[in-house]
Protein backbone atom coordinates (compact mmCIF):
# COMPACT_ATOMS: atom_id res chain seq x y z
CA UNK A 1 0.00 0.00 0.00
CA UNK A 2 2.71 2.39 1.05
CA UNK A 3 4.56 1.71 -2.16
CA UNK A 4 1.49 2.64 -4.17
CA UNK A 5 1.09 5.93 -2.36
CA UNK A 6 3.36 8.09 -4.57
CA UNK A 7 1.62 6.90 -7.68
CA UNK A 8 -1.80 7.48 -6.18
CA UNK A 9 -0.73 10.97 -5.12
CA UNK A 10 0.58 11.82 -8.56
CA UNK A 11 -2.60 10.59 -10.18
CA UNK A 12 -4.74 12.60 -7.78
CA UNK A 13 -2.68 15.78 -8.08
CA UNK A 14 -2.19 15.74 -11.83
CA UNK A 15 -5.31 14.05 -13.04
CA UNK A 16 -8.23 13.88 -10.67
CA UNK A 17 -7.77 17.32 -9.17
CA UNK A 18 -7.63 19.18 -12.52
CA UNK A 19 -10.35 16.98 -13.95
CA UNK A 20 -12.52 17.71 -10.94
CA UNK A 21 -11.76 21.41 -11.24
CA UNK A 22 -12.68 21.36 -14.92
CA UNK A 23 -15.96 19.59 -14.26
CA UNK A 24 -16.74 21.97 -11.42
CA UNK A 25 -15.89 25.07 -13.44
CA UNK A 26 -17.87 23.88 -16.42
CA UNK A 27 -20.99 24.35 -14.32
CA UNK A 28 -20.42 28.09 -13.82
CA UNK A 29 -20.22 31.25 -15.82
CA UNK A 30 -17.65 33.71 -14.56
CA UNK A 31 -17.51 37.38 -15.36
CA UNK A 32 -14.66 38.62 -17.58
CA UNK A 33 -12.60 39.70 -14.59
CA UNK A 34 -12.95 36.43 -12.76
CA UNK A 35 -14.37 38.14 -9.71
CA UNK A 36 -17.61 36.30 -9.32
CA UNK A 37 -19.22 33.31 -10.92
CA UNK A 38 -22.75 32.09 -11.34
CA UNK A 39 -24.00 28.50 -11.31
CA UNK A 40 -25.62 27.52 -14.62
CA UNK A 41 -25.80 23.72 -14.45
CA UNK A 42 -25.33 22.26 -17.92
CA UNK A 43 -25.83 25.66 -19.50
CA UNK A 44 -22.26 25.86 -20.74
CA UNK A 45 -22.66 22.54 -22.54
CA UNK A 46 -25.99 23.49 -24.10
CA UNK A 47 -24.52 26.74 -25.26
CA UNK A 48 -21.43 25.03 -26.66
CA UNK A 49 -23.27 22.37 -28.60
CA UNK A 50 -25.52 24.99 -30.12
CA UNK A 51 -22.50 27.11 -31.07
CA UNK A 52 -21.79 27.06 -34.81
CA UNK A 53 -18.08 27.70 -34.27
CA UNK A 54 -17.74 24.90 -31.77
CA UNK A 55 -19.38 22.42 -34.12
CA UNK A 56 -17.18 23.65 -36.94
CA UNK A 57 -14.21 23.04 -34.68
CA UNK A 58 -15.29 19.39 -34.39
CA UNK A 59 -15.20 19.05 -38.16
CA UNK A 60 -11.85 20.87 -38.30
CA UNK A 61 -10.47 18.49 -35.70
CA UNK A 62 -11.71 15.46 -37.59
CA UNK A 63 -10.21 16.68 -40.86
CA UNK A 64 -6.98 17.77 -39.24
CA UNK A 65 -6.39 14.60 -37.22
CA UNK A 66 -7.54 12.38 -40.06
CA UNK A 67 -5.14 14.00 -42.52
CA UNK A 68 -2.26 14.19 -40.04
CA UNK A 69 -2.67 10.51 -39.15
CA UNK A 70 -2.94 9.36 -42.74
CA UNK A 71 0.00 11.48 -43.94
CA UNK A 72 2.36 10.66 -41.08
CA UNK A 73 1.50 6.94 -41.07
CA UNK A 74 1.48 6.62 -44.84
CA UNK A 75 4.87 8.24 -45.30
CA UNK A 76 6.30 6.30 -42.34
CA UNK A 77 5.04 2.96 -43.67
CA UNK A 78 6.43 3.70 -47.11
CA UNK A 79 9.85 4.56 -45.68
CA UNK A 80 9.78 1.56 -43.34
CA UNK A 81 9.07 -0.82 -46.22
CA UNK A 82 11.97 0.67 -48.16
CA UNK A 83 14.25 0.49 -45.14
CA UNK A 84 13.17 -3.06 -44.31
CA UNK A 85 14.33 -4.18 -47.73
CA UNK A 86 17.67 -2.42 -47.35
CA UNK A 87 18.50 -3.12 -43.76
CA UNK A 88 21.46 -5.35 -43.19
CA UNK A 89 22.82 -3.82 -40.02
CA UNK A 90 23.39 -0.39 -41.51
CA UNK A 91 22.30 2.07 -38.86
CA UNK A 92 22.80 5.20 -40.95
CA UNK A 93 19.48 5.08 -42.72
CA UNK A 94 17.61 4.53 -39.49
CA UNK A 95 19.45 7.33 -37.69
CA UNK A 96 18.78 9.75 -40.52
CA UNK A 97 15.09 9.12 -40.18
CA UNK A 98 14.99 9.55 -36.43
CA UNK A 99 16.25 13.07 -36.29
CA UNK A 100 13.10 14.90 -37.38
CA UNK A 101 11.46 13.27 -34.39
CA UNK A 102 14.02 14.89 -32.16
CA UNK A 103 13.16 18.31 -33.54
CA UNK A 104 10.51 19.57 -31.18
CA UNK A 105 7.18 20.05 -32.94
CA UNK A 106 7.14 23.78 -32.24
CA UNK A 107 10.55 24.24 -33.81
CA UNK A 108 9.33 22.22 -36.74
CA UNK A 109 6.38 24.57 -36.92
CA UNK A 110 8.64 27.61 -37.08
CA UNK A 111 10.76 25.96 -39.74
CA UNK A 112 7.78 25.14 -41.89
CA UNK A 113 6.36 28.60 -41.31
CA UNK A 114 9.63 30.06 -42.42
CA UNK A 115 9.79 27.95 -45.54
CA UNK A 116 6.26 29.00 -46.45
CA UNK A 117 6.62 32.63 -45.39
CA UNK A 118 4.95 35.03 -47.84
CA UNK A 119 8.02 37.19 -48.38
CA UNK A 120 11.17 35.17 -47.60
CA UNK A 121 9.94 31.52 -47.62
CA UNK A 122 11.86 29.33 -50.01
CA UNK A 123 8.90 27.11 -50.83
CA UNK A 124 6.65 30.10 -51.39
CA UNK A 125 9.28 31.50 -53.68
CA UNK A 126 9.45 28.31 -55.73
CA UNK A 127 5.68 28.06 -55.86
CA UNK A 128 5.69 31.69 -57.02
CA UNK A 129 8.12 30.81 -59.80
CA UNK A 130 5.76 28.07 -60.88
CA UNK A 131 2.95 30.58 -60.97
CA UNK A 132 1.24 29.63 -57.72
CA UNK A 133 0.43 32.32 -55.20
CA UNK A 134 0.83 30.72 -51.76
CA UNK A 135 -0.75 32.53 -48.84
CA UNK A 136 -1.70 30.44 -45.86
CA UNK A 137 -2.53 33.54 -43.83
CA UNK A 138 -5.61 34.10 -45.97
CA UNK A 139 -6.35 30.74 -47.56
CA UNK A 140 -8.13 28.14 -45.38
CA UNK A 141 -7.02 25.10 -47.34
CA UNK A 142 -3.41 26.19 -47.53
CA UNK A 143 -3.35 26.91 -43.81
CA UNK A 144 -4.78 23.48 -43.07
CA UNK A 145 -2.31 21.85 -45.45
CA UNK A 146 0.57 23.58 -43.78
CA UNK A 147 -0.34 22.60 -40.22
CA UNK A 148 -1.05 19.03 -41.33
CA UNK A 149 2.34 18.74 -42.99
CA UNK A 150 4.13 20.40 -40.07
CA UNK A 151 2.37 18.15 -37.53
CA UNK A 152 2.89 14.98 -39.55
CA UNK A 153 6.53 15.74 -40.06
CA UNK A 154 7.47 15.26 -36.42
CA UNK A 155 5.50 12.00 -36.20
CA UNK A 156 7.00 10.24 -39.18
CA UNK A 157 10.09 8.96 -37.39
CA UNK A 158 8.10 7.69 -34.44
CA UNK A 159 5.70 5.84 -36.71
CA UNK A 160 8.57 4.69 -38.88
CA UNK A 161 10.31 3.04 -35.95
CA UNK A 162 7.18 1.13 -34.97
CA UNK A 163 6.45 0.07 -38.53
CA UNK A 164 10.05 -0.97 -39.05
CA UNK A 165 10.04 -3.02 -35.84
CA UNK A 166 6.75 -4.58 -36.97
CA UNK A 167 8.18 -5.42 -40.40
CA UNK A 168 11.31 -6.89 -38.91
CA UNK A 169 9.19 -9.07 -36.65
CA UNK A 170 7.61 -10.80 -39.66
CA UNK A 171 9.62 -13.98 -40.26
CA UNK A 172 11.61 -13.72 -43.46
CA UNK A 173 10.63 -17.25 -44.40
CA UNK A 174 6.93 -16.31 -44.48
CA UNK A 175 7.68 -13.67 -47.10
CA UNK A 176 9.86 -16.12 -48.99
CA UNK A 177 7.13 -18.74 -48.89
CA UNK A 178 4.78 -16.20 -50.45
CA UNK A 179 7.36 -15.39 -53.11
CA UNK A 180 7.65 -19.07 -53.97
CA UNK A 181 3.85 -19.27 -54.01
CA UNK A 182 3.99 -16.73 -56.81
CA UNK A 183 3.16 -13.46 -55.06
CA UNK A 184 4.84 -10.36 -56.47
CA UNK A 185 5.93 -7.61 -54.13
CA UNK A 186 2.67 -5.68 -54.13
CA UNK A 187 0.58 -8.84 -53.68
CA UNK A 188 2.80 -9.91 -50.81
CA UNK A 189 2.38 -6.51 -49.23
CA UNK A 190 -1.39 -6.54 -49.59
CA UNK A 191 -2.05 -10.13 -48.55
CA UNK A 192 0.73 -10.93 -46.07
CA UNK A 193 2.70 -7.95 -44.81
CA UNK A 194 -0.09 -5.45 -44.24
CA UNK A 195 -2.39 -7.91 -42.43
CA UNK A 196 0.48 -9.03 -40.22
CA UNK A 197 1.24 -5.39 -39.44
CA UNK A 198 -2.34 -4.66 -38.42
CA UNK A 199 -1.73 -4.67 -34.64
CA UNK A 200 1.05 -2.11 -35.09
CA UNK A 201 -1.05 -0.09 -37.50
CA UNK A 202 -3.97 -0.01 -35.12
CA UNK A 203 -1.83 0.99 -32.18
CA UNK A 204 -0.28 3.79 -34.22
CA UNK A 205 -3.68 4.88 -35.45
CA UNK A 206 -4.89 5.54 -31.91
CA UNK A 207 -1.63 7.09 -30.78
CA UNK A 208 -1.54 9.38 -33.80
CA UNK A 209 -5.14 10.48 -33.43
CA UNK A 210 -4.51 11.29 -29.78
CA UNK A 211 -1.39 13.15 -30.85
CA UNK A 212 -3.24 15.12 -33.50
CA UNK A 213 -5.90 16.01 -30.94
CA UNK A 214 -3.72 17.08 -28.08
CA UNK A 215 -0.11 17.61 -28.94
CA UNK A 216 -0.26 19.70 -32.06
CA UNK A 217 -1.05 22.78 -30.06
CA UNK A 218 2.47 24.19 -30.43
CA UNK A 219 2.49 23.75 -34.18
CA UNK A 220 -0.85 25.40 -34.69
CA UNK A 221 -0.10 28.22 -32.31
CA UNK A 222 3.16 29.12 -34.07
CA UNK A 223 1.98 28.72 -37.64
CA UNK A 224 -1.61 29.92 -37.82
CA UNK A 225 -2.86 30.65 -34.30
CA UNK A 226 -5.98 28.79 -35.30
CA UNK A 227 -6.72 31.02 -38.29
CA UNK A 228 -7.55 32.15 -40.87
CA UNK A 229 -10.87 32.78 -39.12
CA UNK A 230 -11.19 29.44 -37.35
CA UNK A 231 -9.99 27.23 -40.21
CA UNK A 232 -7.32 25.50 -38.13
CA UNK A 233 -8.89 25.83 -34.68
CA UNK A 234 -9.04 22.25 -33.46
CA UNK A 235 -10.85 21.45 -30.23
CA UNK A 236 -7.80 21.71 -28.02
CA UNK A 237 -6.81 24.99 -29.54
CA UNK A 238 -10.29 26.32 -28.90
CA UNK A 239 -10.03 25.42 -25.21
CA UNK A 240 -6.95 27.57 -25.12
CA UNK A 241 -8.25 30.47 -27.18
CA UNK A 242 -11.62 30.63 -25.40
CA UNK A 243 -10.11 30.14 -21.95
CA UNK A 244 -6.95 32.19 -21.99
CA UNK A 245 -7.52 34.59 -24.81
CA UNK A 246 -11.30 34.90 -24.61
CA UNK A 247 -11.37 34.54 -20.79
CA UNK A 248 -14.52 32.43 -20.99
CA UNK A 249 -13.45 29.96 -18.31
CA UNK A 250 -16.78 28.20 -18.00
CA UNK A 251 -17.01 27.39 -21.69
CA UNK A 252 -13.35 26.44 -21.80
CA UNK A 253 -13.84 24.06 -18.87
CA UNK A 254 -16.87 22.50 -20.52
CA UNK A 255 -14.79 21.92 -23.66
CA UNK A 256 -12.12 20.24 -21.55
CA UNK A 257 -14.73 17.91 -20.12
CA UNK A 258 -15.89 16.99 -23.62
CA UNK A 259 -12.29 16.29 -24.62
CA UNK A 260 -11.89 14.15 -21.53
CA UNK A 261 -14.85 12.06 -22.65
CA UNK A 262 -13.38 11.68 -26.14
CA UNK A 263 -10.04 10.48 -24.80
CA UNK A 264 -11.83 8.02 -22.55
CA UNK A 265 -13.79 6.67 -25.50
CA UNK A 266 -10.64 6.33 -27.62
CA UNK A 267 -8.89 4.46 -24.84
CA UNK A 268 -11.78 2.05 -24.45
CA UNK A 269 -11.92 1.45 -28.20
CA UNK A 270 -8.20 0.77 -28.23
CA UNK A 271 -8.36 -1.79 -25.45
CA UNK A 272 -11.39 -3.51 -26.93
CA UNK A 273 -9.69 -3.77 -30.32
CA UNK A 274 -6.38 -4.89 -28.98
CA UNK A 275 -8.09 -7.72 -27.16
CA UNK A 276 -9.53 -8.93 -30.42
CA UNK A 277 -6.96 -8.05 -33.02
CA UNK A 278 -3.49 -8.51 -31.63
CA UNK A 279 -3.29 -12.26 -31.98
CA UNK A 280 -4.47 -13.53 -35.28
Amino acid sequence: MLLLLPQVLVTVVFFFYPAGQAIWQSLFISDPFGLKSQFVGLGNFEYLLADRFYRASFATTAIFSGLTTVVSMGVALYLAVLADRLIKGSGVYRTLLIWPYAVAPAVAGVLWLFMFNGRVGIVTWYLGLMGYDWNHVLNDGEAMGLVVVASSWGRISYNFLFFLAGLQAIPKSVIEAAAIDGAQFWTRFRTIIFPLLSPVTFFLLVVNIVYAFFETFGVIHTITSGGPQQATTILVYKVFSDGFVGQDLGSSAAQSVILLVIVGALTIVQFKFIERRVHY
Partner: protein
Amino acid sequence: MATLKLDGLKKSFGDTKVIHGIDIDIAEGEFIVIVGPSGCGKSTLLRMVAGLETVTSGEIQINGVRVNDLEPMDRNIAMVFQNYALYPHMNVFDNMAYGLKIAKTPKPEIAERVQTAAKLLQLEDFLQRRPRELSGGQRQRVAMGRAIVRRPAVFLFDEPLSNLDAKLRVQMRLEIRELQRSLGVTALYVTHDQVEAMTLADRMIVMNDGVADQIGAPLDVYKNPATTFVAGFIGSPATNFFGTDEVTVNRNKALMSAFSDAERAVLEKPATMIGVRPEHLQVCEPHDAYLTLSVNYSEALGAETLIHGKLPMGTAITIRQNGHLPLPEGGQELGAVWSENSVMVFDQNGKRV
Protein backbone atom coordinates in the same frame (compact mmCIF):
# COMPACT_ATOMS: atom_id res chain seq x y z
CA MET B 1 8.33 -34.37 -62.16
CA ALA B 2 11.63 -33.16 -63.36
CA THR B 3 15.33 -33.64 -63.58
CA LEU B 4 17.61 -31.30 -61.72
CA LYS B 5 21.21 -30.56 -62.54
CA LEU B 6 23.73 -28.59 -60.54
CA ASP B 7 26.85 -27.71 -62.46
CA GLY B 8 29.87 -26.19 -60.71
CA LEU B 9 27.57 -24.33 -58.34
CA LYS B 10 29.37 -21.79 -56.16
CA LYS B 11 28.25 -19.18 -53.68
CA SER B 12 30.03 -16.37 -51.85
CA PHE B 13 28.63 -13.83 -49.43
CA GLY B 14 30.92 -10.88 -50.03
CA ASP B 15 34.40 -12.32 -49.66
CA THR B 16 33.26 -15.38 -47.75
CA LYS B 17 33.07 -18.47 -49.91
CA VAL B 18 30.27 -20.68 -48.65
CA ILE B 19 29.74 -23.21 -51.46
CA HIS B 20 32.86 -24.27 -53.33
CA GLY B 21 31.43 -25.99 -56.39
CA ILE B 22 28.74 -28.67 -56.34
CA ASP B 23 28.02 -30.97 -59.29
CA ILE B 24 25.18 -33.45 -59.39
CA ASP B 25 22.74 -34.87 -61.91
CA ILE B 26 19.43 -35.72 -60.30
CA ALA B 27 17.05 -38.07 -62.06
CA GLU B 28 13.29 -37.72 -62.24
CA GLY B 29 11.62 -38.71 -58.97
CA GLU B 30 14.87 -39.15 -57.12
CA PHE B 31 15.05 -38.31 -53.40
CA ILE B 32 18.33 -36.52 -52.72
CA VAL B 33 19.34 -35.67 -49.17
CA ILE B 34 21.91 -32.98 -48.44
CA VAL B 35 23.44 -33.85 -45.09
CA GLY B 36 26.17 -32.18 -43.07
CA PRO B 37 26.82 -30.35 -39.83
CA SER B 38 25.28 -26.98 -39.06
CA GLY B 39 26.87 -24.11 -41.00
CA CYS B 40 28.32 -26.20 -43.84
CA GLY B 41 26.14 -24.49 -46.47
CA LYS B 42 23.20 -26.87 -46.89
CA SER B 43 20.51 -24.22 -46.65
CA THR B 44 22.44 -21.89 -48.91
CA LEU B 45 22.63 -24.60 -51.57
CA LEU B 46 18.92 -25.34 -51.29
CA ARG B 47 18.01 -21.66 -51.35
CA MET B 48 19.99 -21.19 -54.54
CA VAL B 49 17.92 -23.91 -56.16
CA ALA B 50 14.77 -22.23 -54.83
CA GLY B 51 15.84 -18.87 -56.24
CA LEU B 52 16.00 -17.23 -52.81
CA GLU B 53 19.76 -16.69 -53.10
CA THR B 54 21.62 -15.57 -56.18
CA VAL B 55 24.11 -17.92 -57.79
CA THR B 56 27.72 -16.68 -57.67
CA SER B 57 28.85 -19.00 -60.43
CA GLY B 58 27.85 -22.27 -62.02
CA GLU B 59 24.48 -23.35 -63.31
CA ILE B 60 21.19 -24.80 -62.10
CA GLN B 61 19.02 -26.62 -64.61
CA ILE B 62 15.50 -27.88 -64.08
CA ASN B 63 14.36 -30.20 -66.86
CA GLY B 64 17.38 -29.14 -68.85
CA VAL B 65 16.48 -25.44 -68.66
CA ARG B 66 18.84 -22.99 -67.02
CA VAL B 67 16.95 -21.34 -64.15
CA ASN B 68 19.70 -19.22 -62.57
CA ASP B 69 17.95 -15.99 -63.44
CA LEU B 70 14.34 -17.05 -62.92
CA GLU B 71 12.29 -15.81 -59.98
CA PRO B 72 11.35 -18.48 -57.40
CA MET B 73 7.77 -18.48 -58.65
CA ASP B 74 8.89 -19.27 -62.19
CA ARG B 75 10.98 -22.30 -61.29
CA ASN B 76 8.07 -24.61 -60.59
CA ILE B 77 9.38 -25.61 -57.18
CA ALA B 78 7.80 -25.77 -53.74
CA MET B 79 9.63 -25.41 -50.48
CA VAL B 80 8.97 -26.59 -46.93
CA PHE B 81 10.75 -24.44 -44.34
CA GLN B 82 12.20 -25.46 -41.00
CA ASN B 83 9.82 -23.15 -39.11
CA TYR B 84 7.00 -24.07 -41.56
CA ALA B 85 6.56 -20.40 -42.58
CA LEU B 86 2.77 -20.70 -42.57
CA TYR B 87 0.76 -17.52 -43.06
CA PRO B 88 -0.30 -16.89 -39.46
CA HIS B 89 -3.38 -14.81 -40.30
CA MET B 90 -4.89 -17.37 -42.67
CA ASN B 91 -6.62 -20.62 -41.90
CA VAL B 92 -5.32 -23.96 -43.11
CA PHE B 93 -7.43 -23.90 -46.27
CA ASP B 94 -6.23 -20.43 -47.25
CA ASN B 95 -2.65 -21.32 -46.44
CA MET B 96 -2.79 -24.19 -48.90
CA ALA B 97 -4.85 -22.29 -51.46
CA TYR B 98 -2.69 -19.14 -51.46
CA GLY B 99 -0.45 -20.11 -54.38
CA LEU B 100 -3.36 -21.41 -56.43
CA LYS B 101 -5.35 -18.22 -55.88
CA ILE B 102 -2.42 -16.16 -57.07
CA ALA B 103 -2.14 -18.38 -60.12
CA LYS B 104 -5.85 -17.57 -60.76
CA THR B 105 -6.85 -21.23 -60.61
CA PRO B 106 -10.66 -21.60 -60.86
CA LYS B 107 -12.33 -21.78 -57.43
CA PRO B 108 -13.80 -25.29 -57.77
CA GLU B 109 -10.42 -26.65 -58.76
CA ILE B 110 -8.73 -24.93 -55.81
CA ALA B 111 -11.28 -26.46 -53.44
CA GLU B 112 -10.82 -29.87 -54.99
CA ARG B 113 -7.01 -29.81 -54.90
CA VAL B 114 -6.91 -28.55 -51.31
CA GLN B 115 -9.43 -31.21 -50.26
CA THR B 116 -7.36 -33.94 -51.90
CA ALA B 117 -4.18 -32.77 -50.19
CA ALA B 118 -5.98 -32.37 -46.86
CA LYS B 119 -7.27 -35.92 -47.12
CA LEU B 120 -3.85 -37.25 -47.96
CA LEU B 121 -2.39 -35.46 -44.93
CA GLN B 122 -5.30 -36.10 -42.56
CA LEU B 123 -6.00 -32.39 -42.26
CA GLU B 124 -9.67 -32.45 -43.31
CA ASP B 125 -10.94 -31.59 -39.83
CA PHE B 126 -8.60 -28.64 -39.45
CA LEU B 127 -9.18 -26.66 -42.64
CA GLN B 128 -10.84 -23.77 -40.80
CA ARG B 129 -8.20 -23.48 -38.08
CA ARG B 130 -5.43 -20.94 -37.85
CA PRO B 131 -1.83 -22.21 -37.65
CA ARG B 132 -1.52 -21.22 -33.98
CA GLU B 133 -4.38 -23.59 -33.15
CA LEU B 134 -2.46 -26.58 -34.53
CA SER B 135 0.16 -28.88 -33.05
CA GLY B 136 3.70 -28.98 -34.43
CA GLY B 137 3.01 -32.09 -36.44
CA GLN B 138 -0.15 -30.62 -37.96
CA ARG B 139 1.64 -27.41 -38.92
CA GLN B 140 4.27 -29.53 -40.56
CA ARG B 141 1.54 -31.25 -42.54
CA VAL B 142 0.02 -27.94 -43.61
CA ALA B 143 3.42 -26.87 -44.89
CA MET B 144 3.59 -30.13 -46.83
CA GLY B 145 0.07 -29.58 -48.12
CA ARG B 146 0.93 -26.12 -49.33
CA ALA B 147 3.78 -27.65 -51.31
CA ILE B 148 1.70 -30.51 -52.70
CA VAL B 149 -1.31 -28.56 -54.00
CA ARG B 150 0.83 -26.62 -56.42
CA ARG B 151 2.03 -29.83 -58.09
CA PRO B 152 5.59 -28.59 -58.42
CA ALA B 153 8.36 -30.21 -60.43
CA VAL B 154 10.74 -30.27 -57.47
CA PHE B 155 10.16 -30.37 -53.70
CA LEU B 156 12.69 -28.56 -51.55
CA PHE B 157 12.84 -29.32 -47.83
CA ASP B 158 14.99 -27.39 -45.36
CA GLU B 159 15.22 -29.40 -42.13
CA PRO B 160 11.45 -29.83 -42.09
CA LEU B 161 11.41 -32.17 -39.09
CA SER B 162 13.92 -30.58 -36.76
CA ASN B 163 11.28 -28.74 -34.72
CA LEU B 164 9.36 -31.93 -33.92
CA ASP B 165 9.86 -34.30 -31.02
CA ALA B 166 11.73 -37.53 -31.66
CA LYS B 167 8.74 -39.82 -32.03
CA LEU B 168 6.85 -37.55 -34.39
CA ARG B 169 10.02 -37.08 -36.39
CA VAL B 170 10.23 -40.80 -37.12
CA GLN B 171 6.58 -40.91 -38.12
CA MET B 172 6.73 -37.83 -40.36
CA ARG B 173 9.92 -39.14 -41.94
CA LEU B 174 8.04 -42.19 -43.14
CA GLU B 175 5.11 -40.07 -44.32
CA ILE B 176 7.33 -37.73 -46.30
CA ARG B 177 9.04 -40.64 -47.99
CA GLU B 178 5.76 -42.34 -48.87
CA LEU B 179 4.27 -39.11 -50.13
CA GLN B 180 7.26 -38.37 -52.31
CA ARG B 181 7.21 -41.90 -53.72
CA SER B 182 3.52 -41.85 -54.51
CA LEU B 183 3.65 -38.40 -56.10
CA GLY B 184 6.89 -39.23 -57.90
CA VAL B 185 8.19 -35.70 -57.42
CA THR B 186 11.93 -35.06 -57.43
CA ALA B 187 13.02 -34.00 -53.94
CA LEU B 188 15.96 -32.16 -52.47
CA TYR B 189 16.00 -32.52 -48.69
CA VAL B 190 18.34 -30.81 -46.23
CA THR B 191 19.10 -32.25 -42.81
CA HIS B 192 21.91 -32.39 -40.27
CA ASP B 193 20.58 -35.73 -38.98
CA GLN B 194 22.45 -38.64 -40.55
CA VAL B 195 19.73 -41.12 -39.57
CA GLU B 196 17.19 -39.06 -41.51
CA ALA B 197 19.61 -38.97 -44.44
CA MET B 198 20.22 -42.72 -44.36
CA THR B 199 16.52 -43.59 -44.19
CA LEU B 200 15.16 -41.08 -46.72
CA ALA B 201 17.76 -40.79 -49.43
CA ASP B 202 18.04 -42.50 -52.76
CA ARG B 203 21.36 -40.71 -52.86
CA MET B 204 22.89 -38.34 -50.42
CA ILE B 205 25.27 -35.42 -50.71
CA VAL B 206 27.54 -35.32 -47.67
CA MET B 207 28.57 -31.69 -47.26
CA ASN B 208 31.66 -30.54 -45.42
CA ASP B 209 32.33 -26.80 -45.30
CA GLY B 210 30.78 -26.02 -48.65
CA VAL B 211 32.29 -29.05 -50.41
CA ALA B 212 30.42 -32.20 -51.41
CA ASP B 213 32.78 -34.74 -49.84
CA GLN B 214 30.79 -37.61 -51.24
CA ILE B 215 27.67 -38.23 -53.27
CA GLY B 216 26.16 -41.70 -53.27
CA ALA B 217 23.55 -44.17 -52.07
CA PRO B 218 23.35 -44.30 -48.26
CA LEU B 219 24.75 -47.82 -47.88
CA ASP B 220 27.57 -47.18 -50.34
CA VAL B 221 28.52 -44.09 -48.41
CA TYR B 222 28.38 -46.00 -45.15
CA LYS B 223 30.48 -48.85 -46.49
CA ASN B 224 32.92 -46.81 -48.51
CA PRO B 225 33.28 -43.35 -47.06
CA ALA B 226 35.50 -41.18 -49.23
CA THR B 227 37.00 -39.04 -46.47
CA THR B 228 37.58 -39.09 -42.71
CA PHE B 229 34.83 -36.49 -42.49
CA VAL B 230 32.27 -38.74 -44.16
CA ALA B 231 33.40 -41.78 -42.18
CA GLY B 232 33.04 -39.79 -38.98
CA PHE B 233 29.73 -38.14 -39.85
CA ILE B 234 27.77 -41.05 -41.29
CA GLY B 235 27.13 -43.88 -38.85
CA SER B 236 26.60 -43.66 -35.12
CA PRO B 237 28.58 -43.97 -32.91
CA ALA B 238 31.21 -42.36 -35.10
CA THR B 239 34.06 -44.26 -36.76
CA ASN B 240 37.21 -44.68 -34.64
CA PHE B 241 40.37 -43.09 -36.03
CA PHE B 242 43.88 -43.84 -34.80
CA GLY B 243 47.45 -43.77 -36.03
CA THR B 244 49.47 -46.94 -36.71
CA ASP B 245 51.41 -46.31 -33.53
CA GLU B 246 48.35 -47.42 -31.56
CA VAL B 247 48.66 -50.90 -33.06
CA THR B 248 50.98 -52.48 -30.51
CA VAL B 249 50.39 -56.22 -30.20
CA ASN B 250 50.60 -58.58 -33.17
CA ARG B 251 51.62 -55.51 -35.10
CA ASN B 252 52.94 -57.31 -38.15
CA LYS B 253 49.93 -59.51 -38.51
CA ALA B 254 47.60 -56.61 -37.93
CA LEU B 255 49.27 -54.28 -40.38
CA MET B 256 50.16 -56.83 -43.06
CA SER B 257 47.08 -58.99 -43.30
CA ALA B 258 44.25 -56.53 -43.44
CA PHE B 259 45.46 -53.99 -45.98
CA SER B 260 45.91 -53.76 -49.71
CA ASP B 261 49.26 -52.90 -51.28
CA ALA B 262 48.21 -49.33 -51.90
CA GLU B 263 47.15 -48.97 -48.29
CA ARG B 264 50.36 -50.51 -46.98
CA ALA B 265 52.33 -48.04 -49.06
CA VAL B 266 51.03 -45.07 -47.04
CA LEU B 267 50.53 -46.92 -43.77
CA GLU B 268 53.83 -45.95 -42.19
CA LYS B 269 53.65 -42.29 -43.26
CA PRO B 270 53.22 -39.86 -40.37
CA ALA B 271 49.68 -38.43 -40.70
CA THR B 272 48.05 -41.62 -41.98
CA MET B 273 44.90 -42.61 -40.11
CA ILE B 274 43.28 -45.98 -39.72
CA GLY B 275 39.50 -45.95 -39.43
CA VAL B 276 37.34 -48.73 -37.98
CA ARG B 277 33.65 -48.51 -37.18
CA PRO B 278 32.67 -49.42 -33.59
CA GLU B 279 30.50 -52.26 -34.89
CA HIS B 280 33.52 -53.80 -36.67
CA LEU B 281 35.57 -54.23 -33.51
CA GLN B 282 35.31 -57.27 -31.24
CA VAL B 283 36.63 -57.87 -27.80
CA CYS B 284 39.05 -60.84 -27.80
CA GLU B 285 41.80 -62.62 -25.86
CA PRO B 286 44.79 -60.30 -25.28
CA HIS B 287 47.23 -62.52 -27.18
CA ASP B 288 45.06 -62.44 -30.34
CA ALA B 289 44.46 -58.69 -30.14
CA TYR B 290 45.52 -55.96 -32.59
CA LEU B 291 44.52 -53.23 -30.17
CA THR B 292 44.57 -53.02 -26.40
CA LEU B 293 42.37 -50.55 -24.61
CA SER B 294 41.70 -49.58 -21.05
CA VAL B 295 37.97 -49.23 -20.49
CA ASN B 296 36.62 -45.88 -19.29
CA TYR B 297 32.99 -46.91 -19.01
CA SER B 298 30.37 -49.04 -20.74
CA GLU B 299 26.90 -48.02 -21.83
CA ALA B 300 24.40 -50.88 -21.75
CA LEU B 301 21.61 -49.95 -24.19
CA GLY B 302 19.86 -53.32 -23.99
CA ALA B 303 20.20 -54.75 -27.46
CA GLU B 304 23.76 -53.49 -27.66
CA THR B 305 26.57 -52.27 -25.45
CA LEU B 306 28.95 -49.40 -26.16
CA ILE B 307 32.38 -49.77 -24.61
CA HIS B 308 34.32 -46.52 -24.38
CA GLY B 309 38.05 -46.76 -23.74
CA LYS B 310 41.53 -45.45 -24.49
CA LEU B 311 44.29 -46.89 -26.66
CA PRO B 312 47.90 -46.95 -25.35
CA MET B 313 48.82 -43.57 -26.90
CA GLY B 314 45.65 -42.00 -25.58
CA THR B 315 43.29 -42.10 -28.61
CA ALA B 316 39.65 -42.57 -27.58
CA ILE B 317 37.97 -45.65 -28.99
CA THR B 318 34.45 -47.10 -28.97
CA ILE B 319 33.41 -50.72 -29.46
CA ARG B 320 29.84 -51.69 -30.16
CA GLN B 321 28.94 -55.22 -29.17
CA ASN B 322 25.90 -57.39 -28.71
CA GLY B 323 23.94 -56.66 -25.53
CA HIS B 324 24.07 -60.21 -24.19
CA LEU B 325 27.89 -60.27 -23.99
CA PRO B 326 29.42 -59.63 -20.56
CA LEU B 327 29.67 -55.95 -19.59
CA PRO B 328 33.28 -54.75 -19.13
CA GLU B 329 33.94 -52.53 -16.13
CA GLY B 330 35.78 -49.22 -15.97
CA GLY B 331 39.56 -49.65 -15.55
CA GLN B 332 39.60 -53.10 -17.16
CA GLU B 333 42.19 -53.87 -19.88
CA LEU B 334 40.70 -55.39 -23.03
CA GLY B 335 42.04 -56.73 -26.30
CA ALA B 336 40.21 -56.09 -29.55
CA VAL B 337 40.41 -57.16 -33.18
CA TRP B 338 38.73 -55.78 -36.30
CA SER B 339 36.79 -58.03 -38.59
CA GLU B 340 38.18 -58.70 -42.03
CA ASN B 341 37.80 -56.12 -44.79
CA SER B 342 36.51 -53.58 -42.34
CA VAL B 343 39.50 -51.30 -41.83
CA MET B 344 39.94 -48.14 -43.83
CA VAL B 345 43.06 -46.09 -44.45
CA PHE B 346 43.06 -42.33 -44.92
CA ASP B 347 46.04 -40.30 -46.15
CA GLN B 348 47.36 -37.11 -44.60
CA ASN B 349 44.62 -35.10 -46.38
CA GLY B 350 41.87 -37.26 -44.91
CA LYS B 351 41.21 -38.93 -48.30
CA ARG B 352 40.45 -42.63 -48.39
CA VAL B 353 43.30 -44.70 -49.87
